[in-house]
């Protein structure tokens, strides 16, 4: 009974959030609607990252490469490949899944430090390719000319398009979070060796998590390309990867919506405050430092002990 209520609560909460977000676009000026669109997209990105970081305890230091793969494969298929929006979308997803599989397989061959460094290495490699292969990718200047789906071209309707797309993704992810698969993922974070001795092929398991995480990041990338109407190297840069990690940290990596909150904070600070305060980067830096030193669980915090009794029996 309690469980049914809890489930309904979360559905109810989701519905309210979507309603609020929908209404906001009607009242806010265009600048803010555009900003909110970016927040939604980056929230999706951060949540995809958090699958690995918060739930699985992995350290993908270069996750922007999957955002960027989404951005660039969509953008290139659309401009150079001359595909229409839908096939470009599908093609980009396909490319991203394959890339996730290959990169993930290679990254997971060693221990977790090797994973982190290989991940970083691939990010650097892809970023360098994007930056230097000017003839293909447009280099530093990027490529412009990506269009949005016909009916959704202007800022407001595009916002609703993104809201719908992101909501669908969140529903899918939410279903995933409540599944046995996600439970085992948390076990991976808590004690990998115990999981191994429960008969689970850790490497294969991590690869599946990796691909799912990369897939949602790629979707975010495709939406981003449409938002910016172009593809740019910052979308695949180390800075973007670091921003993703910051979003997870600041908002809270131990909850489902934490990274989304973090995304809102980071995007708003880097976009809005930069017009008022020159030192937004420093501000972000201070917040990060504070979070790492003090609030490891971010704003939304960690799970606490359920029973008050146990406070007396905390095991050393």
């Amino acid at each position, binding site marked *: 009974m309690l469980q049914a209520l809890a489930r309904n609560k979360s559905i109810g909460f989701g519905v309210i959030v979507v309603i609020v977000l929908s209404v906001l676009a009607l009242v806010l000026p265009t600048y803010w609607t555009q900003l909110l669109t970016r927040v939604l997209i980056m929230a999706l990105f951060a949540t995809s990252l958090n699958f690995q970081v918060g739930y699985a305890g992995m350290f993908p230091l270069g996750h922007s490469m999957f955002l960027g793969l989404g951005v660039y494969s969509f953008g290139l298929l659309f401009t150079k490949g001359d595909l229409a929006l839908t096939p470009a979308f599908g093609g980009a997803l396909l490319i991203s899944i394959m890339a996730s599989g290959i990169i993930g397989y290679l990254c997971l061959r060693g221990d977790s430090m090797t994973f982190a460094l290989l991940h970083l290495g691939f990010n650097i490699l892809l970023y360098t390719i994007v930056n230097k292969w000017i003839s293909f990718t447009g280099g530093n200047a990027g490529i412009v000319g990506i269009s949005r789906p016909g009916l959704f071209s202007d800022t407001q309707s595009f916002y609703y398009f993104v809201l719908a797309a992101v909501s669908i993704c969140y529903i899918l992810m939410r279903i*995933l979070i409540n599944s046995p698969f996600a439970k085992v993922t948390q076990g991976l974070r808590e004690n990998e060796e115990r999981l191994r001795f429960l008969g*689970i092929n850790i490497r294969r398991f991590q690869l599946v998590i990796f691909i799912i995480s990369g897939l949602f990041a790629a979707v975010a990338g495709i939406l981003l390309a449409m938002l910016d109407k172009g593809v740019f190297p910052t979308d695949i840069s180390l800075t973007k990867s670091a921003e993703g990690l910051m979003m997870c940290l600041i908002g809270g990596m131990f909850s489902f919506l934490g990274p989304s909150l973090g995304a809102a904070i980071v995007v708003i600070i880097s976009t809005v405050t930069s017009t008022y305060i020159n030192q937004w980067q420093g501000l972000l830096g201070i917040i990060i430092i504070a979070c790492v030193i003090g609030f490891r669980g971010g704003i939304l915090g960690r799970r606490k002990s359920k029973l008050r009794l146990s406070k007396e029996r905390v095991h050393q």
Partner: protein
Amino acid sequence: MILRTIDLVKDFGSLRAVDNVSLDIEGGEVRAIIGPNGAGKSTLLDLITNRSHPTSGSVYFRGKEITNLPPFTIASKGIGRCFQISKLFLGLTTFENVQIACISKWGKVYHMYSFKNNVLDHEVTKVLDSIGLNEMADELAGYLSYGDQRRLEIGITLAMMPTLLLLDEPTAGVSRGEGNDLMRLIKKLAAEQALTIIFIEHDMDMVFNYADKISVMHQGRVIATGIPDEIRNNSLVQNIYLGEKIS
């Protein structure tokens, strides 16, 4: 013959931790492995589960060789392992700890959807009942008392319904009374599930009360195997425990 090791050797550089150990364990047997610290007992368990690669020798489980298989495969073939220091999912609740084991057991690891919040509720509760931790179901494993954590460790391992259970000092760090409770629990569950058990233990009372057979290890070798009475009267074993050197 549930488990057979043939001339298992583990060298760490020039140090031979396990020296040509050959054991035969029958199905349903409760075998204790005793010996002074550093005798190689834990390493032996590591070799059986390939947590540590044997330098040479082989391991057979239910007639099939498992010597160099990855630990997760060995575990899934039915060998469960409890560690000297509990390996639990400390940030998750007692319920979730057992739940994960059940998910693995019942093949639901890659089920990515669920419209029920508590998968395998029935199976998990059954395990929690059998180890007496139903009251603590919602508590985070990290906050359990030491004894309860040991119980949980056993519960998780048994939820996998293994054929062979390897226990590393199951009663270390708990009171005599609690230790007896644990061993009685283990023996009861073992009988119910037709388990074979190998356990490392330092507490001689536990060993003589609960073991069918005892193997004594010293400096990496098994120097004696027999029923408790035989071991009790074995002069070689007595020498070891009185501290005299064996030539």
